[in-house]
């Protein structure tokens, strides 16, 4: 994968004269950064928005912003954490400014869990286990849709991106204890849904 994937015409031309004085950053080699993290950022944004086109646009904007603000990166956190922070800011800005349009569009184009069920990879492909996995996935999918914005973000960073809790705290700018309590609550809701589905069965 190369920077072609993130629209080369969006990346401003480097001006050697202007940037010569400034220190080199890891983002100077944008090809490598994009190749390493673009798909990951896209996955997080897609899981958050559940809309591929929008997730793709925001992924491009994430790397564009990473490029334009590269001199602000001081290496205090890892590159994926920095990129996630940028993606989170863009996500928040987008849902804030276009909240009404966003939810209308999301509700009209929302991906149904049933559409994702066939995508489940099963090492054991017995019908029973496939059905159980599909039900479990649907339950979590539906529950994630009902979480608050912050809970959903933290949940996805942990259970989709598999970020460590301190990384999530850095990305979101929240204290570690707050991150933990959000995860406890989100998991509590999922447990409750599990319990109620068991009762129905």
């Amino acid at each position, binding site marked *: 994968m190369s920077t072609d994937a993130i629209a080369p*015409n969006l990346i401003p031309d480097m001006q050697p004269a202007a940037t010569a004085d400034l220190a080199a950053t890891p983002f100077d080699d944008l090809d490598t950064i994009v190749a390493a993290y673009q*798909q990951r950022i*896209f996955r997080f944004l897609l899981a958050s928005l559940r809309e591929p086109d929008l997730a793709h*646009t925001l992924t*491009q904007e994430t790397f564009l912003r990473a490029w334009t603000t590269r001199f602000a990166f001081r290496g205090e956190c890892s590159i994926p954490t920095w990129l996630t922070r940028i993606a989170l800011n863009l996500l928040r800005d987008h849902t804030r400014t276009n909240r009404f349009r966003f939810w209308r569009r999301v509700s009209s184009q929302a991906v149904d869990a049933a559409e994702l*069920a066939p*995508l489940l990879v099963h090492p054991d492909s017995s019908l029973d286990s496939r059905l159980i996995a599909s039900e479990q996935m649907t339950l979590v999918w539906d529950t994630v849709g009902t979480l608050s914005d912050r809970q959903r973000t933290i949940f996805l960073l942990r259970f989709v991106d598999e970020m460590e809790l301190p990384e999530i705290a850095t990305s979101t700018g929240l204290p570690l204890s707050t991150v933990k309590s959000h995860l*406890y609550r989100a998991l509590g809701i*999922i447990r409750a849904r*599990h319990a109620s589905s068991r009762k129905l069965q």
Partner: protein
Amino acid sequence: MNQHLTHEQLCDLILGDPSPETTDHLRDCHLCAAELATLTQSLAAFRSATDVWAGREWIHQQTRTREPHRPASSIKTFMFPALWTAVAALLVAVTLPLALHHNAPSSTTTTAKPAAVATQPSATQSDEALLEEIDQTLSSSIPSPMQPLNDPTAGRHNQSNTQRKN
């Protein structure tokens, strides 16, 4: 048997930060172990589905982006002015013939106007005459058919005058 794991203890297990006692408890308590297994499997299934979906969508987006070789955002920014220009052009194209069509019959009415104007003076004259007549009839206190009764001697005066003449 000890009490079951609390929600926080179970969450710590899922988050990979268990205390030694929770691990010990899990070894002995099948109920908590089953609960943990269900939750872990659900989360794994969710992650797996999201991962595969994102992978597919990513490939789909890449093929779509490479075809026109233009990012979605720049397409949008380009498309909006173009769209509005097209709408404006369409409006002009629709309204212009309509406006021209409206103007064409109005020229015939303007040519007809002088005739209408020419007929106006006679009409106003007749109106004035009619009004004058009405005024006269109203101003006279006695209606014209009753006029001979107003002055009964008028007829005699006339008669005596004719007699004198004779």
